[in-house]
C-alpha cells in the first residue's frame, strides 16, 4: 500500500538532500579560498595546502533553518497529498526540522544519509511499535476477548473473518459473536464467513441486544475452553451519542481484553477525528487498517497512529481471507526509505 508514499518521499528526500548540499558548499569554497592567499604570498610547501584541504573536509558544518525550510514545505505537501492529516504532517515536519537544524555534519558524510535518518526517526516516532497478536494471546488468560469497533463501511465484519482465519492457522480455537444486529444482512454475512472458515458463531436474530449476543459468546468460549473470542459490532458514527453509549454497554458487559479500532486506509483527514473520538469514548488498544490494497498512500496509518498513539496490528489487503498482514513499523519505514538508495 505504501508504494505511492514511498515514491513521493524519495522525491522529497532528494530535494531536501540537494538543498542542504547546495547551501553547504559555498561556505566551503569560500573558506578554501581564504587560506590560499597566504599560500600564494609565501610559497610554502604543497603539503600545507593539503593540510588545509584536509581540515576543511573533516570540518563539521551546521545545517541552518534556512537551508531546509523550502525543502520541508515540499515534504509537507507530499505528506498531505498522501492523506496524512494536517496536524500529523505538522508534527512530522517539526520533528524532521528539529533533528536537522543545528545538526553538525561532516562534509564527508553523505547528505542523503542525514536526511534519511531524520525522516526515518520521525516516521518511527509516529508509527510507534507494532502489535503482536499471537504473542498477546499466548501470554494472556484464555479466552482472550477482542472487540472490533469502527464507523460504518470500514470492513469490520470482513476483518473479523480474516483475523479468525489467521488465528485458526496459528492453532488457536476461535468463536465469533455476531454483534452487528442492526444492519440488514449483517448476521447473514458473518454467518457465511464463519461457515466457510469452519468457525463457531454465536448469533441472535436481527434487532437483538448486541451486548446479550456477545455475553453469550463469551460464556460459550468459557464453557468450551475456546482460546479467542472475536466480537463483531455494528458500524457507528462517533457523533451518535446513543450508539456510542450502546458500545459502552457492550464493553461493560463483555469486558474485552482488547478493543480493536478498524478504519480504512483510504480515509482522509476525518480518520484522525473519528479515531480520536473512539479512543476517547470507548478506548482502543490496537488499530486495524483495511482496504490497504487500493493503491492508497498509507497516510491514514501514519495519522491514526500519531493521533491515538496506539499500535497498528494488521493491514487488510484484499478480499480473500488470507489478505491480512501483521503490521511492523520498522519494516514499513525501512521499505519506505531504505534499501534502494
Amino acid at each position: 500500500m505504501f508504494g505511492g508514499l514511498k515514491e513521493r518521499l524519495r522525491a522529497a528526500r532528494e530535494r531536501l538532500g540537494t538543498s542542504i548540499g547546495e547551501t553547504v558548499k559555498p561556505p566551503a569554497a569560500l573558506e578554501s579560498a581564504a587560506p590560499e592567499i597566504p599560500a600564494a604570498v609565501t610559497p610554502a610547501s604543497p603539503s600545507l595546502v593539503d593540510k588545509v584541504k584536509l581540515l576543511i573536509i573533516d570540518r563539521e558544518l551546521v545545517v541552518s533553518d534556512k537551508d531546509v525550510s523550502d525543502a520541508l514545505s515540499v515534504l509537507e505537501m507530499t505528506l498531505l497529498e498522501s492523506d496524512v492529516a494536517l496536524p500529523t504532517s505538522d508534527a512530522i515536519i517539526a520533528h524532521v526540522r528539529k533533528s536537522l537544524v543545528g545538526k553538525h555534519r561532516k562534509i564527508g558524510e553523505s547528505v542523503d544519509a542525514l536526511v534519511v535518518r531524520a525522516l526515518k526517526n520521525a516516521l518511527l516516532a509516529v508509527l510507534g511499535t507494532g502489535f503482536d497478536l499471537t504473542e498477546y494471546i499466548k501470554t494472556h488468560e484464555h479466552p482472550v476477548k477482542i472487540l472490533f469497533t469502527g464507523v460504518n463501511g470500514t470492513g469490520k465484519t470482513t476483518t473479523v473473518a480474516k483475523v479468525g482465519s489467521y488465528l485458526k492457522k496459528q492453532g488457536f480455537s476461535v468463536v465469533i459473536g455476531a454483534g452487528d444486529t442492526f444492519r440488514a444482512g449483517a448476521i447473514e454475512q458473518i454467518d457465511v464467513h464463519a461457515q466457510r472458515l469452519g468457525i463457531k458463531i454465536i448469533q441472535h436474530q436481527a434487532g437483538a441486544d448486541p451486548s446479550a449476543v456477545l455475553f453469550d459468546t463469551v460464556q460459550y468460549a468459557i464453557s468450551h475452553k475456546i482460546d479467542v473470542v472475536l466480537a463483531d459490532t455494528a458500524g457507528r458514527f462517533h457523533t451518535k451519542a446513543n450508539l456510542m453509549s450502546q458500545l459502552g454497554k457492550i464493553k461493560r458487559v463483555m469486558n474485552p481484553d482488547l478493543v480493536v479500532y478498524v478504519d480504512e486506509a483510504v480515509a482522509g483527514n476525518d480518520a484522525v477525528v473519528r479515531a480520536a473520538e473512539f479512543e476517547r469514548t470507548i478506548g482502543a488498544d490496537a488499530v486495524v487498517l483495511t482496504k490497504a490494497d487500493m493503491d492508497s498512500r498509507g497516510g491514514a496509518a501514519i495519522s491514526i497512529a500519531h493521533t491515538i498513539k496506539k499500535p497498528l496490528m494488521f493491514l487488510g489487503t484484499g478480499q480473500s481471507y488470507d489478505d491480512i498482514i501483521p503490521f511492523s513499523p520498522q519494516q514499513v519505514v525501512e521499505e519506505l526509505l531504505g534499501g534502494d538508495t
Partner: protein
Amino acid sequence: MLDSLSASLKDALKKLAGKTVVDRAAVDELTKDLQRALISSDVNVKLVIDLSKAIRTRSLEEEPPKGTNVREHVLRIVYQELVRLVWASTDVKLEPQTILMAGLQGSGKTTTTAKIARFFQKKGMKVGVICADTFRPGAYDQLSTLCQKINIPCIGDPKGTDARKIVKEGLVTTKDLEVVIVDTQGRHALEADLIQEIIDLNAITKATHRWLVIDAALGQQASEQARRFHEAIGIDGVIITKMDGTAKGGGALSAVAETKSGIVFVGAGETVENLERFDPDGFISRLLGMGDMHALMERAGEVMTGEEVDVNAMMKGKFSLRDMYKQLEALNKMGPLKQIMSMLPMGNMKLPDGVYDVTTTKMVRYRIIMDSMTDAELDDPSLITSSRLQRIARGAGASPEEVRELLKYYKMMQRTLKGLRGATGGKFNMQRMMKRFTGSQ
C-alpha cells in the same frame, strides 16, 4: 457537517475584513489558509492549488465593483471559484430510467440504492432494484430486507455467482417498472476483472445513469479512483454518503472535478429516508458559513405545512411546551436535530451538545408525556407543581424522573433559542437572514 471546514474558511476570510485595499500580502495569506482548509477537508491537493491560484490572480487583478468592499469582493471570487469546482448539479428526471451504482467497498452503495429507490417511490414512480453483488456474503439479504420495509421488489439470487446473468434476468423481470436500480459489488480501480465486470454490466443494462458512490471520509484517493471508474463506464453523477459523521466530503469534490459531473444526492443517516438532493449553491453557501436555507425549506415543505412550526416565534424566545411538541413531531419526520440545525444559517455558532442528545425513542416518550398535560400546562410549564407532575407521570405511564427530564430538556431548548437571538444582535430574523443569504450570491 462541514462545520470545521467552514470555520477555518471563515477565519481566513476574517483576516481580510479590516483591509481597505486588496493588498498582496493579505490575499497571499488568505489563499494559504484556504489551501490548508480545503486540504484538511480532503480536497485533492492539485485541485486546491489550481483553485487558490485562480482566486489569487482574480482577487489581485479584478477591480472590485463599485460599492463592494474588499472582503465582499474576495468572498465573491472565492464563492464563484468554489461553485465552479463542484460543477453543476445533476438533474434527476422523473422518467423511466436504469441506474447503475458503482463504488469502492464499504462506501454505502447498498444502503444508498435503497434510499434512491425510496426517493423515486415517494415521487410516485414504480421502482425495482437488482442486486448484482454476488461476492459479499449477506449482500442480497441486506438489500432485500431494506426493500421489503419499503415495499419495493428486489431481484437477485443469494446463491448465484454470475452477476451478468442475474442482471440480464433481472432486467426481464423488471421490464414493466419505470425505475430500475442495479446495486453492484464494491470494487476498486486496481481490480482488473471487477472493472471488466462493471463495464459488462454497463453494456448489459444500457444504464441511463452511472452513479459513483463516494464515502465522505475518502481522502486523496478519490480523484484517482473516480478517474479510473470514469474511464471504465463514464460516471455521470456522484453521491456523497456518510455525511452525518464529521467527514467533510472533500474527496467527493475531487471526484466531481475528475468526472466533470455533479453531485446527485447526499446521504446522511442510516434510515432509507436520509437522502437529500444536492444543491451546489447551497453547499457552497454552507461551506462559507451562510447557511443552506434552500435545502431546509425544500425538506420542511415536504413533511409539514407551514403553520405547524412557527420558526419566527421560536426564535423570538416565545417557546412553550406546545411549540416543543410540534417541533418534536416535525423533527421526527425531518431527521435528527443536528442535521436540521446544520442547515440553519447560524454561522459557526456552537450549540451545547446536550441539545442533540435526544434520541428518537425519547422523543416519542416526551410526546406521550406532553399528551397527558393540560392546555394550560403546555402554554405555561411553570404551572407544573410536584402534584401536577405526579399526575402527568401517572397519566403517561412514565416515572416522575422522566417528566422532570423532559422539563429540563425544555428549559435547555428555551435557553438555547434565547441564546441564538442574543448572538445575532437581538434582532434575529429569518427573513433578514434569508435576504442576506440570497443577496450574497
